[in-house]
């Protein structure tokens, strides 16, 4: 993998050095690195001449930006009204048992991150969740367990 510094530099150089491009640059870092590293904020601050505090304020404000590295697979568990009533709390506790993490945390092996989200727009298949960019509907603790196992297998190659 290329150096973090090089990727950050490449992202920053793809935009003119203007204040209005600080958010797009941070979004690119999130996409390519899975998080917005401190080095990234500091480099953005130096390039745009903006205080680090202003960038940190933005990075900590938006949920789409993460200041800590996310796992390889980001699990988004829907906690909208329909999914909540259809058993999301049960899924959350079985994920805790399966992965040993709660919402907003990442497993120690860096494989999974867990987030609860307000709605995935898939109420018809409640309870719904996403792993990466794939949707899963009508999830039960049993099917969840099998899913996690299959992702573990995929990661192991």
């Amino acid at each position, binding site marked *: 993998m290329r150096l973090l510094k090089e990727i950050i530099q490449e992202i920053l150089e793809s935009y003119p050095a203007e204040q209005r491009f600080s958010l797009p640059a941070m979004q690119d870092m999130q996409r390519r690195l899975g998080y917005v590293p401190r080095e990234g904020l500091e480099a953005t601050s130096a390039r745009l001449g903006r*205080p*680090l*505090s*202003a960038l*940190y304020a933005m990075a900590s*404000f938006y949920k789409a930006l993460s200041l800590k590295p996310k796992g390889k697979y980001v699990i988004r568990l829907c906690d909208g009204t329909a999914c909540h009533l259809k058993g999301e709390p049960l899924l959350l506790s079985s994920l805790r048992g399966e992965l040993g993490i709660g919402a907003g945390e990442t497993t120690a092996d860096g494989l999974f991150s867990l987030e609860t989200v307000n709605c995935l727009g898939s109420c018809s298949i409640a309870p719904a969740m996403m792993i990466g960019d794939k949707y899963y509907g009508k999830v039960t603790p049993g099917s969840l367990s099998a899913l996690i196992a299959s992702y573990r297998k995929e990661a192991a190659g």
Partner: protein
Amino acid sequence: MEIRINGTSYPAEAGEFVLNVARRNLIPIPTLCHHDGLPEQGCCRLCLVEIGEGSRSRIVTACVYPVSEGLEVRTDTEEVAAIRRQNLALLRLRAPEAERVRQLCAYYHVPEDSRFEAMSGERCVMCGLCARACAVLGTGAISTVNRGVIKKVAPPYEEAPVSCIGCGSCAEVCPTKAIPVEQTRETREIWGRTFKMAKCSRCGEPYTTEEAARHAAGIAGLDDAGFCPDCRSRRVGEVMRGVYGR
């Protein structure tokens, strides 16, 4: 132009806000997030006033509402008073340790009881004036971080900020004295950092930190400001005496 506040006409300039005109004419409107030297924040919601006539009347934020010819403003209606009490009650729950909020609550007769639980030990009303002052001064060491109920004022990564110059402006503009500063003749402690005080080159009194003195001198284009505010005015006085005297 002229605007009317509580039935009396007052002169106003285009570009002014209702609060400016009211304050100039000693009409009381409470505020927390307003500071004369900084852009308006419009977030403490205490300066609400009523504008317009009859069914077209509405509540607006006086500190950011621009004046216009013939504008009717009322600061003392029952509705304004009720909203003000409500907002003060919420601010008191947010910052129960803030002396200024308690004073305002007493002054505007805000009932003591509430069905909500107060935050414990909090002084900050999250107006953001401190972060604004820091940014305007060109330091930008602190900002508001996070969002929602965990939002707060902090330096990046919540570490002692390297860019802080210890000028104390954040603590100075804070309406509720929520930013702790420890100061002796020799040092000032703020945001987890300790700064050495600069002494006035004339009277020897400490007047700001060495970093802040350098920063100010840099902005003013001088090698070093070197004087405390008192000695600076004295020196200007002496120069002026030389100009006009004799």
